[in-house]
């Protein structure tokens, strides 16, 4: 590891100004858990890291609005989100997902903004957030904008962020009657990166699916909505015949990548099986354990 400059701006404006949009060797650093791995692997040799540490107070809050929208500051550490009663109320799937996310040491340090900006397709939160319909606020040098998490993540480590933009906030809309589940399917150790991630958010009326979002991750180059499977499931009764059809569609529609955690054929089978299991779990009466 070569020496680099570490700067610690006190404000968001200052931080953005310190990131040279034309120099890829200058990067913002939040918790640093992912960035450190890139540096250890030797694939990223920064000349300057812009630490966002001092922005923690301003960007580290969790609040919910009157209409049930959840707002999480980008610099909030994952453990704060894991243990937040606001989050548990608004989107219990997030707290459940956290229990197996990386490990407690990483969760204590990593931030939600950093995780989203890193865009590793194996991560657990992005598919969950996409299933919940979440969006992010983004601050640039002279403007602000917002987009869905689905639009934010564009590829392997790639996001729609300009080089000198920072995520400031994550917003999760009120979930109403929607129930969400996330399956982290590991191939090796329980603590491994998943071979497949599957998130489902469903509004069910009895046995019928009123609305559904299905998101696959880890086996693809970015988390992806399974739109064909969603279309096939929407408005249908979630019985075994329909679930089998939907699962087959999901298995065919995703562009699966083979790696050391599984061949493409195997991951396709996992996708088939867990699409059905996720829908079943999301259709369970509220309060049933998953």
């Amino acid at each position, binding site marked *: 590891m070569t020496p680099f400059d570490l700067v610690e701006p006190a404000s968001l404006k200052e931080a953005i100004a310190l990131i040279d949009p034309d120099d890829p060797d200058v990067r913002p650093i939040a918790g640093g858990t992912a960035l450190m791995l890139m540096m250890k692997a030797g694939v990223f040799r920064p000349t300057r890291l812009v630490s966002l540490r001092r922005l923690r107070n301003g960007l580290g809050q969790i609040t919910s609005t009157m209409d049930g929208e959840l707002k999480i500051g980008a610099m909030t550490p994952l453990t704060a989100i894991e243990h937040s009663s606001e989050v548990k109320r608004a989107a219990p799937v997030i707290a459940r997902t956290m229990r197996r996310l990386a490990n407690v040491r990483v969760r204590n340090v990593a931030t939600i903004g950093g995780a989203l900006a890193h865009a590793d397709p194996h991560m657990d939160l992005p598919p969950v957030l996409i299933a919940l319909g979440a969006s992010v606020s983004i601050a640039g040098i002279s403007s602000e904008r917002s987009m869905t998490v689905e639009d934010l993540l564009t590829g392997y480590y790639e996001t729609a962020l300009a080089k000198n933009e920072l995520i400031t906030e994550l917003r999760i809309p009120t979930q109403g009657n929607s129930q969400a589940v996330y399956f982290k399917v590991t191939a*090796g150790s329980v603590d491994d990166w998943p071979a497949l991630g599957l998130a489902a958010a469903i509004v069910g009326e009895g046995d019928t699916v009123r609305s559904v979002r299905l998101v696959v991750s880890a086996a693809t180059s970015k988390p992806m909505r399974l739109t064909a499977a969603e279309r096939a499931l929407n408005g249908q009764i979630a019985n075994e015949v329909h679930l089998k059809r939907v699962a087959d569609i999901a298995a065919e529609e995703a562009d699966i990548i083979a790696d050391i955690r599984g061949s493409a*054929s195997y991951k396709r*089978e996992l996708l088939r099986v867990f699409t059905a299991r996720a829908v079943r779990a999301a259709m369970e009466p509220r309060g049933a354990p998953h």
Partner: protein
Amino acid sequence: MKAIKPQVGHQVGRSLPRLEAREKVTGRAEYTHLMQLPGMLQAKILRSTVAHGRIKSINTTDAKKIPGVFGVYTGDDIRTVIPDPYYGPAFHDQPILAIGKVHFVGEPVAAVLAADPHIAEQATQRIIAEYEELPAIFDEVEAAENKVLVHEELKPAGIFADLKHLKGRKGTNIALDFRLRRGDVDKGFASAAHVFEHTFRTQKVLHLALEPYASIADYREDGVTIYSGAQSPSFVRTEIARLLSWPENRVRVKVPYLGGGYGGKLYIKMEALAVALSMLARRPVKVALTMEEQFYTITKHPSTFRIKSGIDKDGKIIARKCEVWWNGGAYADVGPRLTQKSGFTASGPYDIDNVSIDSYALYTNLTPAGALRGFGIPQLVWAYESHTDMIARALKRDPVDFRKQNLLHDGRPQATGTILKNAAIEKVLDRIAERLNWKKPFDRGQGVVRRGRGLAVALKAVISPTTSVAVVNVAADGSATLYCGTVDMGQGSDTAMAQMVGEVLDMPAESVRVVPRDTDVTPYDMGTLGSRSLFHMGHAVRLAAEEARDKIAALRRELGEPEGSNTPLGDLFRKKYGMQAGNIVGTGIYKPDYIPPDSSGLTTDVTPFWMVAGSGVELEVDTETGHVRITRLINVADVGKPINPKIVETQLSGASLMQLGFSMFEKMHVDGGQITNASLADYKIPAIHDVPPVMENMTVDAVQDNGPFGAKGVGELATFGVSPAIANAIDDAIGVRLTELPMTAEAVLRGLYVKDNRPLGDD
């Protein structure tokens, strides 16, 4: 200093908490990785990017120019201070830095010294090495065909007498071939009612001790001091002395605690490089590897084992033929020893009249393989206990009854011809079966989740002959100090040895000071390996303590003390020397008897003690995904009479969890000779969530008659049976038989789909 509470009663048999535990968990324990010496330089290594090639050039000009770089060194530089820089316990085949050729991706080719390790690392990126690529070989069975050769000539060391016949051998990748012939297997197969043959394979995995390799060398004109996380400091001393052509007493090796070893820190790892660089730089040099570099240092042997058994009409195994190919990687390390020593028990804990064993150590162009907890036995048991189970099922026999019918017992000859003694194999098998409720019906389930159970038992001959020496020094106030070369690498040896001293000298174990390893002070020990220390060093320690005790008794008599008096030792010394002065020193040396095998691999004295253990497993299989969930893991072992039952329990638990990772998911993936998952980010080892919800670790009631206080070693035992017990349970649950490790969910699902005649695609 904490006051030592007096202990009434025996020291041996106490579940004494480890003496160094507090030091370790409060971060005060010393490890080589954290040591600093004044003026010390740090080394970073440039590693080969080709699996097999001739070194055309190594250009260090740019690297040398970087400010802060002290020096850049290649194999040629090493040769200016050590003319013949090849080392190894079995073969002197491994160069300190590559010379002429590179033999595996990751082989050390050059080293940079700088005070700042980041600068040294940066400089390695500027060294330009050019190679003429040569064909490379990676598979052990293919390597035995000798179409692509790894080395031009074999260089056996002569350290182990049984390898001398290999010197100068050319034109082969077979570093050693062990053969055992007992009876006539061909006749046996011809007359058998049933013949079964299967082939099993294991994968490349590694130790991954949490403390990576680190060695510091401080070379002076009149001697060199080496600080190293080493399991065999005496070997380091003799080998470095040999490389330097110095007498042993000018080489000092100091070993603090080890953050784990598991066999990976044996013999020479970074010590020779540190010494050579210190010689060249005339400064202390530390070579401390990163966790990722462990993948390029030493691993477990992948293996292929073809096993064939002939069974008579009554279900007796009358013939067994074993062929084992060991993938030793680019340098021999201790592979040839493993190939021979494991060969003794390749046919398993069974009473078979006709046995044929061929065990081959192969060179390939991969990271060298060496000793890893079990020393080849887990790979053998994987094959023979899966095979034996498959035979039982094919013959519609109960797997426990079939084993019992064929099991070896005390008084019977094992395959080598040595008569079995103090080997509680049947007791172990019975206990596993009992804990699994084997006789009770077992519900295998009807739905998506199926259940199964399986077990396995195994036998190992502790390697022999090896020597241990110990010294007990009683000071003038009666306090005792133990000097012995057994390295405490987390297995609790210091505690156990202190208990044995305390037992003999009738003092609390906690009051015995066990001196950290220092070859200027602690005497010879062959090495902390192969579960030998408790027995061999235990005897040496016992003998040393007994000699001290006898000398104390003699002193009492000399001073005219009445028989049976309990005058405190301090008073005795004061009486003898007029003040608190003097010492009583006792020495113990232990080397067991051994008769080397003849040309048929046979001997009547192959081992001073047999190692016996087994495992039982209950598990669930998700038949839609292939995921296996182990619900109960039972480990049972024969350790004679345990010196410290708590340590025994933790050793059984730890060994089985390590083997669990090797069984279920660990694997070094290789592409073109490059390991593609060479970091803990991608190569996962078992963590707390992988531990089965129910795990039982126990010993059977037994005595090792010739063991210190009736005990024998435990470290490796619970690695033996885990893998085949799981495979047998999976077969029991879903009728799918896996013959290769690791047993991943994908492998299980593929097995299921093949069984249903709709195999999964290949992509």
